[in-house]
Every structure is written in C-alpha cells, then in structure tokens.
C-alpha cells in the first residue's frame, strides 16, 4: 500500500505517495524524474546513484526513501543556480574529468561532500573521498585534478567573499 512521503529535494518540499519499501533511487529517478543520478549496480558498490543527504554523500540505492524524510536531499540537478554551474561542475568541464558521464553526477556530489567539510584537501584526501565511486572511462586522473582545481577555485572565491 502506498503511503504518504514528504521529502525535501533540492530546496523544494515534495509530497508524494510511495510504497514504504521504495528506494530513494527509484523515488528520485522515477517519481520525480531526477534522472541525473544513475543506476550502475543497485548494490552500493559503483556510486553512480550518489546523492547528498544533509551534505553527506549517500548511495541512493541503499536508502529507503522514508529514511530520508526530514533531511535535505541534493541531487545533481540542484547544484547549478540560475544557470551558473557549481565550481566543481565547472572544474569537471575545464579539466576534462568527464567522459561517458555515467559516473559524473555521483563523482561531483561525492566531491562536494568532501570539499564542504575539507576545503583544502590533499590528493590523497580526494582519492579517499571518491573510493566508493567507480569510473570505467577516465582512469580517475583528471577527476582528481578537477576536484583539486575546484577546491582552489572555491577557496579563492571564499577569500574574495571575505574581502567584500
């Protein structure tokens, strides 16, 4: 039996009805058409379905949608504002960290979770933060470069912000 479900997704409150066992991945992809998160293994290993819950990177194939009630969910669709890309998105473009794009939304969100709590990560920090996100195309080299470049960008815009 479907039950009422209240989610907060990308800053918007959403009311819907869903089976109690329905996975967050399926609610987001199928009920809310947020198809930026991808399904790669449905068992928590590939990270293609990564979303942010209260700014932590979470694999949405391992979360029942009800568990996410009362929390702030962010998907890749919620990252750019007014057509302005988030610095991590921009860095992924500038550094050629995208190939097929299937892992990209998960990679970017997992990177955001890292940079939000560690604005000055080392190469090793980046690798540890992304260990749960598989990529089969890039060999990860440019992904690491992009995250470090985004950290740079975000630090300098934070400094700019302080000056103003």
């Amino acid at each position, binding site marked *: 039996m479907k039950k009422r479900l209240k989610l907060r997704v990308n800053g918007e409150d959403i009311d819907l009805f869903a089976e109690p066992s329905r996975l967050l991945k399926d609610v987001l992809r199928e009920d809310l058409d947020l198809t930026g998160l*991808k399904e790669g*293994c449905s068992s928590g*290993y590939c990270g293609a379905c990564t979303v942010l819950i209260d700014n932590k990177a979470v694999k949405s194939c391992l979360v029942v949608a009800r568990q996410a009630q009362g929390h702030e969910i962010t998907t890749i669709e919620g990252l750019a504002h007014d057509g302005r890309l988030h610095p991590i998105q921009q860095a992924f473009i500038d550094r050629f960290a995208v190939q*097929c794009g299937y892992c990209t939304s998960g990679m970017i969100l997992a990177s955001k979770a890292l940079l939000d709590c560690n604005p000055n990560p080392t190469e090793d920090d980046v*690798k540890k933060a992304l*260990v749960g996100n598989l990529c089969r*195309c890039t060999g990860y*080299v440019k992904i690491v470069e992009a995250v470090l470049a985004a950290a740079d960008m975000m630090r300098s815009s934070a400094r700019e912000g302080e000056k103003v």
Partner: protein
Amino acid sequence: MSKEFSVIGKSIPRVDARAKVTGQGKFSADLKIPGLCYAKLLGSPYPHARIKKIDVTRAQDLPGVISVITGDAPENRLYGDLYMDSYIIAKDTVRHVGDPVAAVVARSEDIARDALDRIEVEYEELPAVFDVEEAMRPDCPVVIHPDMLKYTRLPKPNLRYTPAPEGRKNVFEYFQIVKGDIDRGFAEADLIVENRYTTPIGNAAPLETPVMDAWFETDGVLTLRGKTQSMHQVKAAICNIFHLSPSKVRFLVPYVGGAFGPFCHIWPEIIAVLIVMTVQRPVRLAFDRTEQFTLSGQKPGRVIYVRDGVKRDGTIIARDITFITNYGAYAGPHGTQALVKGCTGGAISLYRHEHFRFRGYAVYTNTCPAAAFRSIGSSDMHWGMEQQMDIIAERLKMDPVELRRRHIFKEGEEDIVGEPIHSIGAEECLDTAANWIKLKEKPAPAPGPWKKGKGIALVGHWVVTEMPSWSYVKVHKDGSVEVRHAGCELGQGCDTVITQIAAEEFGVPVDKVRLITRDTDVTPFEFYTAATRLTYYIANSLARACQDAKRQIFDLAAPRLEIPAHELALGNGEIYVENSPGKRIKISDLYSPIGFLPVPGGEILGKGFFAEPAIPYDANGRSPKQWAAHPYMAYAVEIGVNTETGQVRVEKVAGVVDVGRALNPKLVEGQIEGGMGQGIGGAIFEELILEDGRVLNPSFVDFCIPTIMEIPTGKNVASLITPPLPHPKAYNGVKGVGELTIVPFFAAVGNAFYNATGIRICDLPLTRERVLKAIFGPQLEGHVPARDEGSKIASSTSTSPSEQANITVSMPLSSILKANNAITNGDG
C-alpha cells in the same frame, strides 16, 4: 606540417560536458515511452543440455504477465555475424549457462522476474567442454555445433578463414599469416625462446548496463532506442535477419555510458526485436549488473604461444605465434568478423622479422559467448610478445629498449604481410617512456616486504580498412554549420572532435557548429564506433563533405565577386579573396531576401564519403593493403610487489602515444589514462571465475575493476603525445587512439614484475593468489615453477603445448624453459 590550425589540435572543452555535469544528458534508462512493458530472460542453468520440455502455464497465469516467449515463437530464427549459428531464443539445445530459453514480458520488471521462477523446463544434460585447448583437440569428445559446416556463412570477402582446420570440430575459424620459412628461421637461430601465455575471460564492465527499448510507431516503423556502438550496422543486420525494409526501421541512441567493444553487434537488440514483434507493445529489455557480467558478450580468454628464434647479435629472425581464443558457445550474437584477424594488426606492424607465422584459432566452448573488448585481443597477444622481448634481451644481456629499437620498421618499409607502412612514431614512444621512468636506474628501495620494479612495453596498433564513412554538412544562411554523422559518442569525445573539424574547415567558432546524430533516420550510414577507426574515417569523410559544401558556396559566389571559384576562401560566414580586402560577401548575401537559396534543393548540402578498400589476403595471409593506419604506444611503469601478501601496486606510469595529430590533446590524454585504468584492472584484478561454465563472480564486489585508490595520479602519471608524422591518407595526420591505450599495459606490468621479483608470470591477472604461488611455488599446491640461474618462469599448469596435437611446438614446456635459458644452436 607547418600549417597553422585555429581549432583542431586545441583542447577545446567537450561539447557534451555541460549536459553531463548537470545531469541533463539523457541515457537510455532515463527515457521512457508510455505503455512500456518489461522483458526478462530465463537462461539455462546447464552449460550444455537438450531441452526436453518447457511449461510456461504457471508463468503465463501470473497477473501482469503479458507474454512468455520460447524457442517456438514464429519470429525466432537463426542469426549470426559470420555464421548463422545461434537461435535468438534457444531451440532444442542450450550451449552455455544463461543461454536464453524463454523471455517473459510483463507490466513491471518485478513481475517479469517473478514469472521466470514459474517456468518449468526439463533438460537432458549433455557433456560439456570449457577449456579452450581441450575443445580444440581433433579428438575432443564434445562437439558443440555438430552442424557447423552446414551453417550459412555470411560473405566476408576480405577475410580468409577456414572452419574446422585439421579436423578440429570445435574450431569455427582458423586464420594464418606466413612469411618466409619459419622452420628455416628456427634452424638458423642461436637461441629459441618460447612461452605459453594466457589471459582470462573478462568483461568490459561499463558503468551503464545494457538497456534496449523497442516499439512500433503508428506508421509501422520499428523503433529501437538504446545503447550501441553501431546504430546503422545493427539496423542493417536486423533488416536482413527479419526481412524488414530499411525504411521501416529506426535506431535512436541516447548518451552511452561507456561501451568498450561488446556493443558493436546485435545483442541484445535482436531479442528486443523478437519480443516486440511477438507482443506488439513497447518493450524494454534491460540487463542488471549480474546480467551484464553473465549475458553480455565477454572479453574472451586466450592462450598465446610465442616462439622466437634469435641470432646471437640480437636479431629475432623468426617469430611464431599461436593464438587461441575461447569464443564460448556461439559466434553469432556478438559478431566475430575480424576478431581473429584483428589482433594481428599490431603483430605485423611494429617489428621486422625475416620469418613469421601467425596461426589464430577461434574455438567454441560451453561458456558465455565472447564479444569484442578494447583491442580485440591485441592486448592479450602483446602480453606475450612484449614479455618475450624482455626475456630475449636478458638472455642476450642486451638493453631491452635497444633490442626493440633495432626491430622497429622504418618509414615506408613493408610490414610483415607486405604492406608499406607510414607514420611510425614507435621509437619516439619507446624512448620517451623509457626516459620518463628512468628505466636504466634501479627503483628506490622499498620498505619491508615490498619490492619495486620497472618495466616497459611497446606496441603497434591499427585502424581497420573496409569500413567506409559518410558525412553530410549543411550550411545555413548565418554561416552556421550542421553536421550529420552517425559516430557514437561513447565518452571518448567523438562529438567534440567532429565539431572541431567542421569549425576548422569552415573557419567558424565551435558554437556555430551543430551536430545532428544519434538517429538513423537523419544520419548517413556509418560503420561501428570501434576498432580505433571512427576519428580516422569520419575526419576524412567530413572534410570531404565540407569541401563539397564549400565548392557549392564558391560556385554561387564566384559570379557575384567576378572571381574564379577556385580562388575563393571561406571564413566566419564570409566568402573572400586572399589579399583582396574589398572582395568579400557574406553567405547570407547569396540568399534571397526572404531566406531561400535560389539553387536546386534550396540549400547548401555537402556530402562526403571516404573508403579504404582492402586487397584480399592470399592463402598465406599476405596482402599489400589491409590496414588504414598504425598508431603506436609505449607504457613504462613502476610497480611495487608485496612479497608477503602478493599485492601488486602500480605506482608510476608513463603512457606515450603516437596517434598522429591529436585533434584535441586533452581528450587523447583522457584515452591514455582510461586505458591505463583498464590496464591496471586487467593486469591485477579482472577475471571472471567460471565453474562448470557458471560465472561465480558477477558483481563489482567480486569482479573488481580499479577504484580511484588503485590508480596513480598527479605527478605519478604522464600522458604524453608524440608529434604527428606525415601519413598519405590521414586527415592532417590524424590516426586514432581508442583501443591502443590498453594494449601495451599488461606486458609493461609483467616486465616490471619480473624486474621486481626475478619471476616471470605468464598468466593474467597478477592476483595475490597467483603472485604468492609464483613466489612460494613449491609450497603451494598445483604449481610447479621452473627454476634456474636466478630466473624463474611460472606458467600455468594445464596441458603442455606438445600434447596439443602438434598445433604449436614440438618441445615440452620443460625443454622450452631450458632453451629459454641457454644459447643453443637452434636444434633444441
């Protein structure tokens, strides 16, 4: 090549990057049409069995089930790429675990899955064969396709294959290349080095699993939408198999989440078509991760014997390769054309040998059918060939770089099969890689149980012939350019370089170029996006389409400017004359005030075609034209080996490519790094474990592809591109890159492993178990490494080559090992 370019050769951002970083780019599973039903396949639990009875009643009765389709379906038929050897849904006989015996179509995927459990099938088990060398013996008691010689063979005029050679009933294709007199070569050799190498069954494992939707439009057009590397070829095959009009079939391709080979052919499209023709409703056939690992075409396992005859001065005068591929149960589903020949493109284009022989066997076994995977066997072949080079160098106390350098073909020289080759940057790749890793210096000592080693490998690769390309170009009134092409953007970046070429040819910024693609209805025919061919071919056909369009523009402008058409130039939407600033008009000036172009057709539409026909092989596999171009690559690696745990860690990598002109260097770097990533996976982790034909590790937990932790990054990686060399047909020197970047990786790691440990491992991958067995050999069961003068060879334990009915060598493994370690007079 002093020509200045404004767009090509520059690392402009990917044209698809914004769509992908914002999550807006749609992949197959992201799109759904109303009324979609879901199909699931029931596979055989046995590797080889006769189907005695199928009862689908209980499945049919489950609410939500629309149809259960079995081998009796009227549209079920034999199909194949080279041989028609496979029914879409098995009829009478199943030949591998997972061989589809029924398809359920239901309102939801869950219902379809539940219904599978309610289908009752009675089987009579048959004896099965899994080991490829056992299967190829003439006396193998299991014959997988008793009717093989009666199957319809599709014409492949350029390929010269023989089925069932030497009475080997499970060998469906045999292909050979013979140069010189191989026996004389070995007789004249001072040293003979021979080894048996193996590579495992693997899987391309793209992040996106296969999704194929099929439906009929109201006008009766059969529409397919899903993941492929080859929309037009698949469409053509489907039209042939089901006798459909090409005007009634359409293939749409959303973004593709990685492909790497297995998506070149008609699987699983063929099943989706059978289902939609049967149920006449929109249907989705999607594989989950387990099915990707068990049902989509596998990277085949291979056994490679390499025997080299060497003169005292280091000249390898004779090289004899026997290349045995385990294709699994069918040649049909995944296409085998050129899979036996394909891998030879590297072996014949790099090193000079007076005597050479290649014998390739494609063998049926009762395992899941194989498909192409990045380099269609070349990485496997070079796993053997490039370790041989190091073994020979060590035996002769020569520098391994110098030994290789000495054998590299010179510009214009005839390759092994008799074709002159051009644009050979192999030596520069080799030297650059060796210098970067400082190959002559010992690695820094490692702490505790770790040992470090360095290794290098060099390869030649190929761009295929015989697969022409077509492009259309339309020029709009504002000077913007529309390109119609059917290359598949798989992540490699073809849409970006195609945009760059059109922008370069018309002298417009890249944002004035629009691509129309991903749809067979509006694009010209294109062969598959595979075999390192797309950039080479499409660059040439697109350049011709651009020239055709420009010619039309100049013909229209010439009378207006009163200048002969051939003196005109084009840039930024204007037609002008070099050095005459006053003489120019805009493309828009050619149009009537209300916006039409007063010519037949009313538009500027350029068409381009480019072909490289092959000259068929003679009986010895010789031909003056079989390959369009040869890119080259060297990897140099430094690895660490933990001698207590068996862990192998790749710590530093330099990948150096000669791809001709890099249209977009950052994209080429991305290919190198991606090849390195898959190379690390294949070298250390990736292996499908089969027990009686059943895959035991069909998940990312058990089939480990590298995570970010296994990859060297930052200053530990160098992706380097050598300067382009002239090539007679390549568009501005562009060759190709795709597959190339995995090919030398395995052997570079193998050589580094030897450098670190003094042990030569001949079987991939270098798992902890295999490494420990190699190190502690005698203490570990089932493993007998040979030992001598400080060099050990650990080879796999299956049948020695001599027992293989003389297919390869006349010496048992023990004497090969002896020969390997002593300069002989060529008689032992």
